[in-house]
């Protein structure tokens, strides 16, 4: 029983990281209608910046905040100077541009900081606490809590503020938003910036566990994409719940289903997707999109 709870809590924490990345992907997708494959790469870059700052004796928490701010700027710059040119064109081309960006960032990190694993300082103590006879790692709880807080803040931004309203307007219909006087371009930059900042948070939380490498989040990106599809592209809450389900299920399946084991646990989310999509093509929580001909 203790092992089970431990697995669930650990799954919840990795699921939160996938969830943050998935949420960043949804944020970009809602605004620009494309999938950003470089989302993980941008987050890794942020983690490297944090790591570099801590090596220059900047306190960890401050370094993380600086990297989040820089990520916001970087995301906005990428939107303005790179993606803007492809946003109205063929979506396949735009997706490939993000693949190119991923390759470029990975190559850049590898060139500047080598491909070796780097130790990343942990934000939380590596102890475990006993609760009702079950030992749970503080890091797992901390990761989950931080990401939940980040998501609540984001939700508040979208629902409670004028900026959020404008962002939603652009996401729903950029042309009408432009007609009603919204600065669509600048809002898209903000959307990309927010997504990049969220990715930076996720990377800082997961980096101690995975150790820092240029390809650190490649796997997480795949899980995040799985969560995006499973949850439905239109539902932020659904995406996060799906990410948690994936995180927990794959942990449990790896331990309890001997055929799957640790090497095939990556198949779990996809089998899940396969089953869910056959039954509900719009995802667990998504709405059916209706197109007028």
């Amino acid at each position, binding site marked *: 029983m203790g092992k089970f709870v431990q697995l669930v809590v650990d799954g919840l924490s990795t699921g939160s990281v996938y969830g943050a990345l998935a949420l960043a992907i949804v944020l970009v997708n809602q605004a620009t209608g494309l999938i950003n494959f470089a989302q993980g790469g941008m987050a890794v870059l942020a983690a490297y910046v944090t790591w570099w700052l801590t090596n220059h004796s900047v306190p960890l928490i401050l370094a993380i905040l600086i990297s989040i701010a820089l990520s916001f700027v970087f995301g906005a710059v990428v939107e303005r100077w790179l993606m803007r040119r492809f946003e109205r064109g063929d979506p396949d*081309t735009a997706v490939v*541009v993000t693949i190119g960006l991923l390759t470029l960032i990975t190559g850049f990190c590898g060139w500047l900081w080598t491909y070796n694993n780097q130790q990343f300082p942990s934000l939380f103590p590596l102890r475990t606490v006993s609760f009702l006879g079950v030992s749970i790692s503080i890091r797992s709880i901390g990761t989950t809590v931080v990401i939940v807080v980040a998501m609540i803040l984001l939700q508040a931004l979208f629902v409670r503020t004028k900026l959020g309203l404008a962002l939603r307007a652009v996401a729903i219909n950029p042309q009408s938003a432009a007609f009603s006087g919204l600065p669509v371009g600048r809002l898209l930059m903000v959307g990309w910036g927010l997504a990049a900042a969220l990715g930076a948070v996720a990377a800082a939380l997961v980096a101690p566990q995975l150790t820092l490498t240029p390809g650190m989040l490649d796997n997480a990106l795949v899980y995040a994409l799985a969560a995006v599809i499973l949850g439905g592209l239109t539902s932020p809450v659904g995406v996060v719940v799906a990410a948690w389900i994936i995180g927990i299920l794959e942990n449990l399946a790896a331990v309890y289903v001997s055929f799957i084991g640790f*090497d095939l646990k990556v198949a779990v989310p996809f089998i899940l997707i396969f089953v869910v999509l056959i039954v509900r093509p719009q995802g667990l929580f998504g709405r059916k999109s209706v197109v007028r001909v």
Partner: protein
Amino acid sequence: MAPGMTSPASPVWQRPWARWAGWLLLVVVLAVVPLVMTEFANETLARIGVYAVAVLGLNVVMGYAGQVSLGQIFFLGLGAYITAYGVQEEWNIVLVFVLACLIPAVVGLLVALAAARLGGLAIAMVTIALPIVGVPLAKRLSDFTGGSQGMSARFADAPEGSGLFDDQWVLYVVLIIGGIVFLLTRNLVRGKYGRAFAIVKGNENVASSMGISPYRYKVLAFTIASLIGGVSGFLYMAVIQYTSPETMSFGHSIQLVAAMVIGGAASIVGSLLGGAYYVLVPQLTNLVDPSLTALLQGALLLVVLFVLPGGLVSLPRALTRGRRRSRAGRGPVAPPTTPSTTTGSGTAAEEPETERQGHA
């Protein structure tokens, strides 16, 4: 778009006899090339052929039918494994080839029957699963695949008495099989099926209102793409003679997608260019500085797409457009081209043009 094309005084190279002469010349050149080039050049050309076929398959499902597939490399890997297994078991090579085509096609059909129910990005997600699950699965099924060590097989040695070196023979095999696949695919996408794919890509609702079932054509496109992927896997084994789970890694799969878009989506020539890009660019960047490979590849990809969003295949058109514009100054440029220059994309305005160039 190009008014000169339909006018009576069409240039020499567009008359039928000139086109046939061009084709003949191409065949003769391709027949002679393997004999006169170095071993290294032959091997590189053969590898380009392998990946050009793989990109062609991807083009059928993604370029022509508009369904994002991130799993094409899986079918290459599957074809390669089947070939390697068949050769190890000493089956007849023709049977091996047929199996290397059919099994990926059947797998592709089964995946597509489920995946084509979904729209847009969901298909991309289901296809992403193929390489992601394929790699650990290939490691697990080590009785058939040799596990992480992979398996090697030689079957394309030059026959006794042909007087050819192995590399020349292999290149001929690739040229003939690849050439046939390219020809068949070209005919497919120029005809009824190609038009149906284009409508499904453009607007599924319009397609179904015209009596074209998007579901069936999506499944068809995906199955054909898988079959062509299997062929490329067979050729892969002929050229590289070794396969491992790494062959079908996710990284390779997205590089294949990048190669397709860089070459030019929905274009036969673009598939060739894409194959060349896939093979040559890593060689080139390795030559410059091995530690910078990834950085340079990413930068190159972005630069190419920034300059030519329609892919390398749109280069001649971009050049003529540039020349025409500089000749006309800032004055009235041919109106139909302006929208495509302002949006800078290879969408509706550009694709019919490639088709028409082929027909003329």
